[in-house]
């Protein structure tokens, strides 16, 4: 470590094109992952919120992947995305692809793993907000002759926005700081901020840069999580739950 206090590492952080590229890669992956999680996760959250006696079982199913070792989950994706894996076999036998594609160790494989890993974190905050929407509001809309689509657009969707914001920020923060997915499924081809941090620590041995990157990542993630917590706390106050 350098004996003197300097801001050199931070100026590298802002000017080095490698760092910038890694940041943009991470940003791109995180935005795609968060958007897809929101789209596929929202109906799940509504389903869970209205599942009645099935709700505990569905929540159990939702958190089972979290109880499985990250490396094991990543291995599952390696198996599914390989040349003879489920996806290649499915696509070629359906005639959609002429030959197997290289899926593993690409940005796509990292994105697929992260969507799978982070979807529960999108679903849970939204479900907790949707659950608290007073059913009388929807009944009232229905009595006033609103159809299911209008009821959804004018009642459920607007009232669930705090959950959507909370889930989006939580998922985004986790995607930005994800390490195992880019490390294992990126196979060295996908350089995210976290993969670059590992390089600074172990390969280029630029520890001050690794430390500066850590600080930047913490600030980013803590800011996102602050928004997430604020949204959920505001809902608590508004609904009095």
């Amino acid at each position, binding site marked *: 470590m350098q004996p003197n206090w300097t801001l050199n590492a931070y100026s590298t952080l802002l000017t080095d094109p490698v760092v910038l590229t890694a940041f943009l890669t991470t940003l791109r992956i995180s935005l795609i992952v968060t958007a897809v999680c929101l789209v596929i996760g929202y109906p799940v959250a509504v389903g869970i919120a209205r599942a009645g006696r099935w709700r505990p079982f569905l929540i159990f199913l939702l958190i089972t992947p979290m109880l499985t070792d990250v*490396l094991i989950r990543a291995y599952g994706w390696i198996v599914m995305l390989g040349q003879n894996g489920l996806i290649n076999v499915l696509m070629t036998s359906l005639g959609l692809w002429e030959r197997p594609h290289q899926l593993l160790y690409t940005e796509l494989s990292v994105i697929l793993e992260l969507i799978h890993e982070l979807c529960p974190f999108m679903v849970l905050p939204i479900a907790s907000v949707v659950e608290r929407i007073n059913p009388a509001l929807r009944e009232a809309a229905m009595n006033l002759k609103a159809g299911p689509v209008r009821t959804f657009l004018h009642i459920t969707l607007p009232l669930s926005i705090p959950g959507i914001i909370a889930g989006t920020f939580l998922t985004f923060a986790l995607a930005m700081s994800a390490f195992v997915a880019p490390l294992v499924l990126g196979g060295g081809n996908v350089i995210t901020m976290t993969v670059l941090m590992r390089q600074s620590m172990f390969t280029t041995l630029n520890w001050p840069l*690794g430390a500066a990157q850590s600080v930047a990542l913490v600030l980013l993630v803590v800011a996102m999580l602050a928004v997430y917590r604020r949204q959920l706390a505001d809902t608590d106050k508004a609904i009095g739950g």
Partner: protein
Amino acid sequence: MRYAGEGRSGSRLLGGYLVLFFLYLEAPIIIIFLASFNDGPTVRFPPVGLSLQWYEELLHIARDGSGTKPGLVKALWTSAWLGVVSMVGAVFAGVLAAYGIQRYRFGGRAILRQALLLPLLFPQIVTGIGLLLWFSQVGSVPTWARLLIGHLIITLPYVVVTVSASLQTLDPRLEEAAMNLGANRIATFWHITIPSIRSGIVSGAIFAWLISFSNFTVSFFLYSGELTPLPTWLYEYLQHFLDPSIAALSTLLIISTFLVLAIANRLFALGRLAGLRK
């Protein structure tokens, strides 16, 4: 009962979507399970036949057989003791910390509570890098101590959260009653508080063990060749081999995790705390 606000067809559509979604969510686990019984040298789909050859291969690896990566049993053992020692340490410190924060009023209480929960907020890679930098400044800290300190930091918040939740539901008048009847603080804590918050302690302990046992990111920055926890061993293995014996190992690990959780749930009704059961 049918909700007003959407038609029956809407509910059916949502139900069908939920089934698809959960199939997708559990797909990697199902695939690993199928792959482990696959007959053939590589993982392929559809499986070409049923065999236990990869479980035999796993035994071969466990015996440090030729042509395999050695150290599986040692890695399992390392992760097991690391999990147990972290669990005991985190429970001891976590119960006392949660009790202090919940029952006493003192300056900086809110800050202390936030500080204890901070590792939940920080990306684990930052915890790992921070510890690596710190240990390199401190000097020669043996690997076991590095791993243990790292794992204590990440497991402690889980115990604090579950025990605090239990303490909130415990009526302080129970403890006051015990003290009115002549019990001192320590006796009250031991005979009233601890038994009442038992399920919080147990679920915190199980979380702590699970978090430690399956942690990769923090260990990755602190481990060494002679002391390799299981997830880091798995990572190194996957760098060189992708054969289905890992699917066999994964299947066994997944089944044992769920057995532990199911038994614990049976014994201590953890679900109520984790919000799984009403």
